[in-house]
């Protein structure tokens, strides 16, 4: 291993492993990645993993247990740059959809009953930035191969990643899809960060929001628009919160508070 190669670690907290799998799906590029960087740890791809100082840590998954938290704190401590990869890490993911801590606790009890977990303590799922400083975000459920490669190559070259900061609608127009919202379909494209090439609308399906909130996600306008189209309030909030993780908590509380 040459000394000048960047030391990189890829880690998985609680999630579906989809982002690590997507990295593995880079296939022929994977060999180039292993040549270009010193991959110190990548559980899904190799068994000779080493902990230690890192230039870049890529972390997937949400913090959902005390063990996740300790691992994340440890990774942060030994990494110069920390990149949250995938929706669970950037926004909290599906599992962060229970916004109210009491609601989460009730549901936890419903699943696990009275059983006390001995191996670790469960925590309400949160994105990485709830606990540590995150330097870059690579959203997506799961992340996109092209976006990952472009982010990684830029990091290897010493540049910050350049990701789309606009919502899905831009890419949706690029693919010349008819706007589903205008057809009365509950599409979350305007609220959702681009990067997926508008895959769902391109399959005649509404965006469900799996890239997490776009930088300027206009919840108020989208909410009002959907109300005017006849959708019910809870349906709208439920859809909005499925993939937005903790980002929608304030908005949902305000809407529910205002309308009650």
């Amino acid at each position, binding site marked *: 291993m040459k000394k000048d190669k960047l030391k990189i670690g890829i880690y*998985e907290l609680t999630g*579906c492993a989809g982002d690590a799998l997507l990295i593995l799906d880079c*296939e022929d590029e994977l060999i180039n990645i292993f040549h270009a960087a010193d991959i110190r740890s990548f559980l899904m791809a190799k068994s000779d993993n080493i902990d230690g100082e890192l230039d870049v840590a890529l972390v997937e998954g949400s913090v959902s*247990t005390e063990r996740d938290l300790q691992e994340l704190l440890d990774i942060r401590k030994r990494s110069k740059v920390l990149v949250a990869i995938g929706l669970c890490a950037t926004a909290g993911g599906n599992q962060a*959809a229970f916004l109210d801590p009491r609601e*989460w606790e009730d549901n936890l009890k419903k*699943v696990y009953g009275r059983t006390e977990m001995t191996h670790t303590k469960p925590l309400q799922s949160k994105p990485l930035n709830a606990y540590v400083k995150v330097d870059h975000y690579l959203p997506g459920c799961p992340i996109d191969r092209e976006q990952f490669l472009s982010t990684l190559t830029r990091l290897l070259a010493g540049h910050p990643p350049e990701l789309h900061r606009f919502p899905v609608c831009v890419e949706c127009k690029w693919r010349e899809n008819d706007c589903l919202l205008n057809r009365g379909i509950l599409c979350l494209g305007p609220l959702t960060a681009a990067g997926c090439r508008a895959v769902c609308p391109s399959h005649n399906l509404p965006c469900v929001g799996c890239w997490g909130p776009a930088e300027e996600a206009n919840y108020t306008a989208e909410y009002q628009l959907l109300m005017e189209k006849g959708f019910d309030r809870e349906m709208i909030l439920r859809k909005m919160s*499925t993939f937005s993780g903790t980002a929608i908590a304030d908005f949902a509380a305000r809407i529910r508070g205002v309308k009650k």
Partner: protein
Amino acid sequence: MKTISISHLARVEGAGGVTATIDGQVVTDVKFIINEGPRLFERLTIGKTPEEDLNIVPRICAICTLSHRYAALRALEKALAIKEPPKVLLLRELMHLGEMIESHSLHVYLLALPDYLGYPNAIAMASKYGFEAKVGLEMKQFGNHIMKTLSGRFVHGENPILGGFGRFPTREELVFIKNRAVQFLPFALKTVQLMCELPYPEIPESDTLFVCCHPAAGQFGFMGDEVILSNGDLVDAQEYKKVTNEFIVSHSFCKRSQYDGKPYSVGALARINNLGERLEGEAGRAFKKYFNARWKKNPLFNNAAQALEILYSFERIPQVIEEALKMPDPEPVGWGRDTGKAVGAVEAPRGILFHAYDVSAGRIAHTDIVTPTAQNAEDIERYCFIAAQTLLKKGEEAKIRDRMDLVIRAFDPCISCSAHMVQVKQAPNEDWKTRLQELASGGETAFVGLGREDRSDDAAGLELARLLRDRGSKNVRLAEDLSEETAPAVGTRPLVFLDAVDFGEKPGKICLLPLRFVLWNTSLSHRLAALTGLPLDSEQLLGAHLLGIQPASIAEGGPISAEVREAMNEILEMLGN
């Protein structure tokens, strides 16, 4: 006393690890721990629409994403009386074959093979075995391509929807897949040869019960409305709890007669064992050539079974596409009703997967999802235990760690099990004390003495129970005194049996073991059949432990030996505190 722990088994739909605890000549514990945090997926679906459920549940696992979607679709369509057009069924089969090829070729070539060839990862392996790595990669890419074409993207594609697809694949896309599948056939044959002829080690070998979907019309396949067990039983998938429950029960002594008291295995090896006779063409020929009695008891053959299924999938794809091309793209299908209850079963690459839903007025009211890895977990522990115990007995302790690795990976619990961090830790002496204390933290411990009065040290369990009772402990029973009335109250935990057990150790050695481990070890379970008659709650037995003392002699009519007496005193003293 030491602990061999594979603490970062990583992915088992999350992070997982395995720990084996060794006390002298006895493996006293094997724990297959899933470190995954709570994600509450079943709860997340409550109150949501069936369409929203389909957005969420595939995210349970990236590796089986399409199987989750497929199982959910089957359940929800049944619940909502949605009649799938024949073309939709064919294209779903195609997408599922894509996932099978993707998952199996990744596992066989890139995750399992490096183990057998002695490399830390596939990239290192590629330097010497470039052809194998390349074939594996290309097959996997092809599987990905099928998944992407049908589902919209590599992972978590949303295209398969209730009653059909958001976008149907074009004729050109289907013809391309068909032609590529035909081109792959020679490589699939080579894969079978390679994986079926690997020298799989003989440890661990032990019979198990295989469970998989029972495809209709005598076909091999990856879904069905019934579940077939290797003992010949057929169960309606709607009654899946009979299978999944009986598994719990089968460990719990009470009802083990049902499945011979064994955990069960799901996955490629289960399918090949239960349905291999149905394979036709090249896959059928390969099955006849390679299948033998060892496939029935050695989990490592799952790698070979996966190779057979890769071959089957490549042979099946052209047939599916030929059929599909004859049909026009169907119109979207509406709901027949908005309230209903149903179960969908499909074979994920790593085994049978159940999704059960209760839909009420268009909203999900109840969800139950049983994943293959959850079902395999007990057998994974059992085979790890057998491997560890057998190697220990043979004086090959050094091999334990790697062998457990091999076993776990063979089950293909999920992708990252290819990689792990293995640690060997020295644990303190008299670990049974610490663990007994840990148990007691879950509530007041109930003790049940076992043994035979007239057989010297074999009376130790009974004698110990009497002594405890004499000292005023309330929760102590003798096996023969147990009746419905005197059994420890339901829900009381923990439950510890006291008995003399021949561990092959020096007399007086004390070991604390999970009760079901004793069952898995034929040399230890000489007397546990008697437990089946006890009027105990099955869940209690599942979590029960055995506190055993190594006897000096169990000859008829003798007294309890001095060594065992001393051990008994040690236990009494510890419990007195």
